[in-house]
């Protein structure tokens, strides 16, 4: 993806339709990135690119299907807000990405570096293997020596370049007097090269140049897979962070200016438009509206906000524009203070040692002892340093953790790839292993099991005339309840009544004149209706009758029922834990068939429940999205959050659900279980090869041919076994 800053270099035909005057401005072209979670095929690529290129001012647009992203070079006056409606018209969901947060270039560089080393090791080992096969096939005397010398000439520089990551890691471990997997690897490489050179100079029969190179190659392949998995997860996590472009509208002497949230200070007047999120803690100075607090507290009922109302960062403004005065900014906001709870909660992650670490702890000292013992044994037996060193090198090479190095990354790559295609992003390396142990699942309600959008429940209770009136009033407002009501009424085939003088009263509802009388749709107090516990919008039809209530319930997220059922079927205990009122929680719990639920839970209560379950020896999976779940997400053994969650919640969780659908959760548990099983199988396979080959090596019967065979077959079987997961 070459940066096409200069429009005359644009190579795609779509760019020819761009009016030149738009692009010829002397200013630097704007680079935009859009996240396109919905694209999946070549028709999508073509449609999106064509659609974007047709927008005047866009110089070039290129879709990256792997990252599900579009990169756009456009004239400086083009903003993402101009392009997103175009894509929505074409039927694609699109979100703006903050390019500053996406540091893809950095991880690219490290990945490319590993790939280069892998390539050098691969091609060098092919050449050396060619020469080695001739030696094994019977080349002798001068020819064999020449082949060995050529192999040495290829191997030494190739290893010096390719094996640098191992040298570096081994050195960092040794400097602090510790052992890691890289120490035996480096020892084996160095010993193999030294003994082979020595043998070659004495016209010896056995040289391990090919073994040293293939070893480097296989180990680098493991490292590269591992890196790729993590890079994909990181870039997608960065993408999620980049979705929240932190800007606020600052009012300076009555003039609106768009500034970064980080630049706000206490006492600033900030304008928050309907649909916007509060950037700071503060107090409403003017304006009336309703606030959605669900991300902070889990409550689904919107709260009225007028002059003097205290608001916290993270709340969403629903109906009218609000001007607020900042009372706390940045780290002092309640949003951040809630984040501090996370630091206190003990992380489930830190209590866990991965299977690979366990294996390395056993393996690294074992290999050194075995090799040292065979060296000592043979030296005492023969008093010949050359034989003893040769055998020690052979033992090290044969036991070298080729298969061990591939055992975990090959499986996690296959499993994460599979889950990524299902819409799940594994952020933490050991998340799969921890997920496999889960026996209890705790769900948050608002925003996790429910979509956070209201759904009308009592449409059939109304006369058609009332519905027509309600639809006319609801269409004038962008309030979630109004939109849901309008949608439901239209779906039922209702057409709007003729009303005049329609206006929205922010924070209360909508009002109009209908056949000479005033009609209203809004909150209870405004239309003199009795208030009730359920989310209700009241219609005052102006006919003297009592106001009629439209009742709403929180719609379940797609796949919520299937996910819960799947988990219950798998024999897991499912809890529902929410900060919302008892009625709302009980309703959802009954609909999903969950018998254990807790309502009106404070963030501390959530952590306490997780801690109690942990003390009972249960492994808890926490699924949540709100700020009030963050501490619980951290405390749980493993945690999942949907992409719509707040940044803090996503950071605290190990796995992120990219789509709307919850169904993959049940499948993820299953995949994780199988992945862990494969990892164990891989360790067993690797051990099996060692059990066969090591006695040969210790007995001095191993030849470079046997070493090459054992190494390649074990690495290949381990990789194939991992591929069964895809």
């Amino acid at each position, binding site marked *: *993806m070459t940066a096409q800053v200069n429009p005359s270099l644009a190579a795609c035909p779509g760019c020819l339709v761009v009016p030149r005057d738009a692009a010829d401005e002397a200013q630097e072209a704007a680079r935009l990135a859009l996240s396109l979670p919905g694209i999946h095929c*070549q028709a999508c*690529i073509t449609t999106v*690119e064509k659609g974007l290129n047709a927008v005047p001012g866009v110089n070039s647009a290129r879709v990256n299907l792997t990252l599900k992203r579009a990169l756009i070079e456009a004239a400086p006056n083009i903003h993402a807000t101009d392009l997103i409606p175009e894509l929505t018209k074409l039927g694609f969901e699109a979100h703006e990405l903050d390019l500053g947060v996406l540091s893809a270039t950095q991880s690219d560089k490290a990945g490319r570096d590993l790939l280069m080393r892998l390539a050098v090791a691969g*091609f060098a080992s092919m*050449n050396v293997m060619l020469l080695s096969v001739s030696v094994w096939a019977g080349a002798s005397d001068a020819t064999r020596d020449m082949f060995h010398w050529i192999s040495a000439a290829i191997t030494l520089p190739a290893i010096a370049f390719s094996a640098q990551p191992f040298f570096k890691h081994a050195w960092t471990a040794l400097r602090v007097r510790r052992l890691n997997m890289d120490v035996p690897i480096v020892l084996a490489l160095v010993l193999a090269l030294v003994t082979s050179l020595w043998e070659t100079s004495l016209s010896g029969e056995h040289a391990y140049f090919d073994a040293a190179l293939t070893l480097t190659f296989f180990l680098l392949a493991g490292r590269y897979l591992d890196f790729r998995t993590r890079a994909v997860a990181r870039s997608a996590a960065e993408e999620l962070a980049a979705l929240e472009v932190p800007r606020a509208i600052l009012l300076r002497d009555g003039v609106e200016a768009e500034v970064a949230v980080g630049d706000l200070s206490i006492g600033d007047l900030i304008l928050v438009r309907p649909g916007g999120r509060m950037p700071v803690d503060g107090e409403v100075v003017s304006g009336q509206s309703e606030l959605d607090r669900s991300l902070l507290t889990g409550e689904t009922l919107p709260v009225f906000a007028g002059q003097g109302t205290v608001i916290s960062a993270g709340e969403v403004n629903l109906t009218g524009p609000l001007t607020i005065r900042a009372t706390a900014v940045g780290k002092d906001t309640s949003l951040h203070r809630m984040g501090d709870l996370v630091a206190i909660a003990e992380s489930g992650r830190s209590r866990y040692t991965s299977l690979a670490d366990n294996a390395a702890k056993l393996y690294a000292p074992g290999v050194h002892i075995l090799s040292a013992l065979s060296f000592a044994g043979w030296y005492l037996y023969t008093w010949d340093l050359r034989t003893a060193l040769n055998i020690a090198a052979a033992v090290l090479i044969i036991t070298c953790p080729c298969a061990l190095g591939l055992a975990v990354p090959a499986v996690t790559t296959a499993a994460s790839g599979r889950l990524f295609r299902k819409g799940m992003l594994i952020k933490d390396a050991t998340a799969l292993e921890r997920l496999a142990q889960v026996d209890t699942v705790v769900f948050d309600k608002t925003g996790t099991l429910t979509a956070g959008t209201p759904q009308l429940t009592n449409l059939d209770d109304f006369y058609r005339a009332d519905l027509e009136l309600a639809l006319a009033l609801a269409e004038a407002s962008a309030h979630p309840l109004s939109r849901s009501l309008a949608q439901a009424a239209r779906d039922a085939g209702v057409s709007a009544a003729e009303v005049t003088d329609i206006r929205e009263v922010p924070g209360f509802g909508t009002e109009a004149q209908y056949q000479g009388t005033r009609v209203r749709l809004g909150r209870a107090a405004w239309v003199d209706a009795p208030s009730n516990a359920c989310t209700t919008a009241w219609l005052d039809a102006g006919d003297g009758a009592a106001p009629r209530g439209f009742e709403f319930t929180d719609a379940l997220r797609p796949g919520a029922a299937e996910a819960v059922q799947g988990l219950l079927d798998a024999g897991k205990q499912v809890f529902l834990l929410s900060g919302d009122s008892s009625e709302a929680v009980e309703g959802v719990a009954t609909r999903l068939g969950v018998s254990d639920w807790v309502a009106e839970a404070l963030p501390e209560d959530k952590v306490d429940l997780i801690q109690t379950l942990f003390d009972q020896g249960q492994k808890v999976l926490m699924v949540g999205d709100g700020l009030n779940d963050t501490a619980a997400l951290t405390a749980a053994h493993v945690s999942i959050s949907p992409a719509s969650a707040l940044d803090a919640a996503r950071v605290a969780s190990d796995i992120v659900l990219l789509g709307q659908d919850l169904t993959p959760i049940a499948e993820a548990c299953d995949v994780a279980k199988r992945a862990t099983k494969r990892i164990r199988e891989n360790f067993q396979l690797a051990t099996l090869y060692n059990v066969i080959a090591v006695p040969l090596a210790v007995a001095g019967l191993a030849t470079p041919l046997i070493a090459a065979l054992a190494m390649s077959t074990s690495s290949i079987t381990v990789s194939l076994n991992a591929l069964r997961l895809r």
Partner: protein
Amino acid sequence: MQVLTFLIPISLILGGLGLAGFLYTVRSNQYDDPEGDSRRILSDEWDDQPKP
């Protein structure tokens, strides 16, 4: 054995060529979007090069 003086350099050069080719593909960003590239061949649009 005279033939080895040709064969060995040839095998080394061929290996080197393969390596150089691979490094070229890495440097020209051909692994950035494997999924998209594999789909683009199905598209009738000439989006990488102007139509001849």
